[in-house]
């Protein structure tokens, strides 16, 4: 093992380990502020410049809050229930954080320093980067179960079981909507997928891409346990779900893992549908692509926060029904539409296309605008009708409520 390899590995990983936890701290503050404003509150605004008596006077909108939270978490008492499985109780938060951190490597963010290192260290250059992403994200489920089981608390266990059922179910629409992009590009390589969308050929600007993005985003919300799919930690029903028995630093690790997973899955959505680091001005200033990537991630996270402030939590049966009876058929139908549209657009030319080039761009460049408009309307109409039908079918048959004493 050469020194250069070690240096390259460090150059590739350490900045990620520094940047994203910092962004995490900022995001918690952003979320608290945004939720507060949605509820007509002010939100954190007290913690200011640390270690000064008048720190609170210069509070800068409470930007010191994440730091104060972090210090508090570090020094809080670590409580382990008496009957808990001590080893697993310790391992679960670590296991929750590691996969989330690991998948960050698969995001094709073109940091300026990354061009100087060898290709074998760039994880997103891996041929199967996207499938690795999904494989490693799936490990999160185990951590959640581990935490729920090790705590020896019925609420924790309930939360853990709910989390497993939810994550396993929503992984399927998630992967199936990503399959469309893989189909279009003909590669699982994250960097290639991002490059294929250069020049505003983003996948969200195709009808099936738009539908896939919406399905992907909904499934991603469920995968990261965000509201309205936060059943595993439904505080009004099962206290805090799987991390009921966690306190102090272990809790902070769970929290960190959850937010990093949010970044990671938003990053994948950006890679797959929103053109990666593409954006205006990138051609002139290459480092702008990093900024664009992060801006897109934050735009998605802002929508997640907005949704959290808006929607109430689902019931368990609604949750599972939504995944299996609504999202899954829709995403399969979407794949079917995308495939047929591909053949329709290409006509007989599919054999004549360059196999090594992304099919999508070749199609987009040579397509008649009328045909494209027809495809948009046709595809979205089919999907909308199907969604409506599924909605009617999958709606639970509930007797209308009778009000005995209301009148």
């Amino acid at each position, binding site marked *: 093992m050469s020194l250069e390899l070690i240096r390259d590995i460090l150059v590739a990983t350490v900045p990620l380990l520094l940047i994203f936890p910092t962004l995490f701290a900022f995001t918690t503050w952003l979320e608290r502020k*945004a939720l507060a*404003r949605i509820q*007509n509150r*002010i939100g954190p605004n*007290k913690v200011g410049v640390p270690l000064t008596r008048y720190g609170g006077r210069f509070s800068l909108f409470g930007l010191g809050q994440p730091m104060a939270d972090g210090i508090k978490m570090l020094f809080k008492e670590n409580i382990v229930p008496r009957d808990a499985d001590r080893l697993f109780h310790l391992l679960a938060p670590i296991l929750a954080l590691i996969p989330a951190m690991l998948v960050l490597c698969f995001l094709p963010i073109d940091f300026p320093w990354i061009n100087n290192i060898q290709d074998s260290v760039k994880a997103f250059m891996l041929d199967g980067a996207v499938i690795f992403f999904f494989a490693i994200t799936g490990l999160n489920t185990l951590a959640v179960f581990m935490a729920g089981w090790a705590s020896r608390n019925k609420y924790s266990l309930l939360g853990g079981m709910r989390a497993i059922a939810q994550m396993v179910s929503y992984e399927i629409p998630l992967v199936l909507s990503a399959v469309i992009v893989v189909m279009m590009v003909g590669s699982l390589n994250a960097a290639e997928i991002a490059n294929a969308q250069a020049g505003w050929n983003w996948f969200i600007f195709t009808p099936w891409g738009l539908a896939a993005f919406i399905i992907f985003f909904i499934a991603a919300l469920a995968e990261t346990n965000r509201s309205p799919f936060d059943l595993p930690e439904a505080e009004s029903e099962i206290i805090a779900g799987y991390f009921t028995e966690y306190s102090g630093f272990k809790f902070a690790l769970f929290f960190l893992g959850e937010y990093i997973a949010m970044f990671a899955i938003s990053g994948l959505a950006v890679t797959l549908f929103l053109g990666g680091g593409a954006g205006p001005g990138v051609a002139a200033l290459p480092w702008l692509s990093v900024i664009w990537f992060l801006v897109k991630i934050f735009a998605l996270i802002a929508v997640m926060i*907005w*949704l959290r*402030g*808006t929607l109430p939590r689902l019931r368990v049966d609604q949750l599972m029904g939504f995944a299996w009876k609504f999202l899954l058929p829709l995403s399969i139908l979407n794949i079917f539409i995308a495939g047929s549209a591909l053949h329709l657009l290409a006509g007989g030319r599919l054999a004549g296309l360059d196999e090594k080039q992304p099919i999508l761009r070749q199609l987009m460049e040579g397509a008649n605008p009328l045909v494209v408009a027809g495809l948009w309307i046709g595809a979205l109409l089919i999907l909308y009708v199907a*969604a409506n039908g599924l909605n009617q079918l999958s709606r639970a048959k509930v007797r209308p409520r009778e009000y005995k004493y209301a009148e």
Partner: protein
Amino acid sequence: MSLLGGGIFKGMAVTLRNFVGSYFYKDRLTTNDYSWRPSDKLPQHAGEYPKEEGEQLRDTTTVTNYSRNFPMLLHDGSEPMDTIRCVACQICERECPPQCIYIEKSTEKKENAGGKPQFYPAKFDIDVSVCMSCQICVEVCPFDAIVMNSQFELSTPDRFGGLLLRRDDLLKSNDYYHNIHPEEAAARDKRIAEEKAAKEAKKKAAAEAARKKAEEKAKADAEASEGTPDIQEDAE
């Protein structure tokens, strides 16, 4: 048929309106920086808050937006323990749903506000971190000794002892009660006075009746036993 998923967008529009509006319309932001004293910018309906530390609000409603209501013990005079109304009957301790009251009865009796020898609470603790402000103790107290206080700024850095109020913390004068809840206190005092008056009238009537009865009896006895004065002497 309404648009599929349209409800979500409607809800999101509402929250967006709230989000943006909270920056532009002051009357949307009904909350206040709770740890700083409110400024005049506070909207009118936000509720009253003491302008200075320790100031007591005159408040006719029992609840303001900022106060917390926990029980207190009443006394009638300047020396709290001499005129304490509580007689340590422990009814409130038994009735308290979260069981946050702890009373220890004194061993000997002592003169209370009415001048009668009574037991008094040697210990009377309320854990206000457990108390749920249900006022059941107030309702069950037969002596009007426990009523609801209205306090601001209860927070404490002491994790275990700080929210456990002792007897001496709980003792408040009737004047204080009149100050914070004037109407309620007046009504209560009026009722106590009425009850007392009724009791006294009843007592008087009873005494009168007893006196009359005794007189009658004495008369009858005198009539019956004119010949036997020894017995009457014994009876007396």
